């Protein structure tokens, strides 16, 4: 359970009004081959956690250790899939993956082996047929598939997915979730996925890490999902276990961590009524 350790990480961002504490003492241990989802309301710092693990941000306190080594800068041992595919628009799907493969396997694979490996990874995400198309000729789901293929192709120790399916329609999202489960079953990757989709979290994860609302967000509750794999979304829809897990997450998000949004109207009314003291976000039962 200690392959990846997010070790008491805190994060403060400097702002003109003084430091803003985004994360407070986030501590998480993830085992090899485990699929962990981070769920929480928007703005709770999920992406900050992921960026710290990726090395794109440096924690103010605490650190990350992966496979026994501390990591503090980005590297190909942690493959990242961003929400907006982040493919180079001037390169074809094949070339986008090639850019990563050539960089990581330079001197370790021959040209022919690399070609084979790029094709193999594109086949994993069912994109072999469109590998010579450029991103603007691909649909959103297809672009995200290529993004996943690129992250897989560098054989990372951990795969970091930042709301990978957030921008896709429900049907495409379901397809991609199935593909991801397939890949995880085949390759046994260690995965951290950020999501705000409860069904997605329950369906895919071994554990769901629920985060409290920011500022100073931290791990609120961890839920073990003990559903047998392979999981089938249609069969699970009737499963009482599945629905129980789903309910647990929903309860956390909508009862314990209910987020009271400030609507401009309310704000005005409040200001007019002189109710200045009211807190903007009510957090009950944090931690």
């Amino acid at each position, binding site marked *: 359970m200690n392959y990846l350790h997010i070790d008491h990480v805190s994060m403060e961002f400097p702002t003109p009004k003084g430091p803003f504490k985004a994360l407070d003492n986030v501590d998480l241990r993830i085992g090899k081959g485990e699929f962990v989802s981070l769920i929480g309301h928007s703005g709770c710092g999920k992406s900050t956690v992921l960026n710290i693990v990726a090395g794109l941000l440096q924690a103010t306190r605490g650190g990350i250790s992966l496979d026994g080594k501390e990591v503090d800068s*980005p590297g190909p041992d942690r493959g990242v899939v961003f929400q907006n595919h982040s493919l180079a628009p001037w390169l074809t799907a094949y070339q986008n993956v090639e850019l990563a493969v050539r960089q990581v396997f330079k001197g370790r694979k021959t040209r022919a082996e690399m070609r084979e490996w790029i094709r193999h990874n594109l086949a994993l995400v069912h994109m072999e047929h469109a590998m010579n198309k450029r991103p603007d000729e691909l649909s959103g789901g297809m672009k995200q598939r290529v993004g996943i293929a690129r992250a897989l192709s560098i054989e990372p120790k951990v795969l970091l997915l930042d709301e990978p399916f957030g921008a896709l329609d429900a049907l495409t999202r379901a397809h991609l979730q199935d593909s991801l489960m397939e890949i995880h079953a085949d390759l046994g990757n260690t995965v951290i996925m950020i999501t705000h989709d409860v069904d997605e979290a329950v369906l895919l994860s071994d554990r769901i890490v629920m985060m409290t609302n920011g500022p100073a967000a931290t791990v609120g509750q961890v839920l073990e999902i003990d559903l047998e794999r392979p999981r089938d979304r249609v069969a699970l829809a009737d499963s009482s276990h599945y629905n129980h897990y789903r309910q647990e997450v929903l309860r956390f998000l909508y009862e314990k961590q209910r987020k009271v949004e400030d609507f401009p109207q309310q704000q005005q009314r409040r200001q007019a009524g002189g109710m200045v003291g009211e807190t903007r976000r009510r957090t009950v039962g944090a931690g």
Partner: protein
Amino acid sequence: MRLALTQSDWLQPLRGLARGDLSAFPWRPVLFPMLGILAFLLFWAQTAPMINTSLGQFPGPAQVYEQVGNLWAEHRAEQARAEEFYQRMAEMNERRMAADPDYVPRERSYSGRTTFIDQIFTSLKTVMMGFAIASLIAIPLGIVIGLSGGLYQAANPIIQVLKPISPLAWLPLVTLVVSAVYVSDNPMFSRSFLVSVFTVTLCSLWPTLINTAVGVGNTSKDLVNVSSVLRLNWFTHVRRIVLPGAVPMIFTGLRLSLSIGWMVLIAAEMLAQNPGLGKFVWDEFQNGSSQSLSRIMVAVLVIGMIGFVLDRIMLALQRLVSWDKSAVLR
């Protein structure tokens, strides 16, 4: 494939025309520019006779057209004279060699009058040289500045102050510096040529520099993250991630630079007395014959047309280099 497609689209109406089908021909994009030019010529022909200068009436289209013929004829005559000269020299050398086998043949180059056509090519050579130097400085410098926020902030005030300076202000400085620094017994370039070139460089540097820096600075944050996750080295990062994204901006800068360079060149040639179209205009102005105004007008129109053609060439180059073939470039 796309190129072939657009080509066949473009050829379609011509094929229709060949079949005698006039309705398929796209009249609007041909007819309207024609009407515009015709209206301009009419206006010009009407107003020109109303303006009287010390050198006589302002030339209308007809007089200018006549001078085009004259200038061309002068050029042909000069060419014929040059040919004659070289032939005579060859004959003379042959005779001398026959009389005295030890004789080393002398080669002299013909130094006749530079015609209008020669001036055009001199100007093109000068502007290309100045533009090439400017681009070779501006693009690499722009990349370096664009990649670093701090460097950009450091360079920006200097760029903004140097950018609007008129070529006429630079010229005396450039002249003095060139004549002080460029001292050679056997110079490869004449000083006046270098003065014009460096003035063009100084003025046409800025649009490319700024556009390159901005284009490079606008590299998508996600792609920069991808690059750092992959640990691409600086060179690969620039070549594979930064440059392709900045190409449209760089070309916008290059096109602006070239058109500014062409404008600046004419002024520089006038003042530096470097051969070229600027000098041609100046000489005709000093000459002050009854034909001078028409000849200057020919030069003015040719300057405009060359500027237009240079821009079109850059546009074609941009289309060739740009990865985004669907973008509308104009």
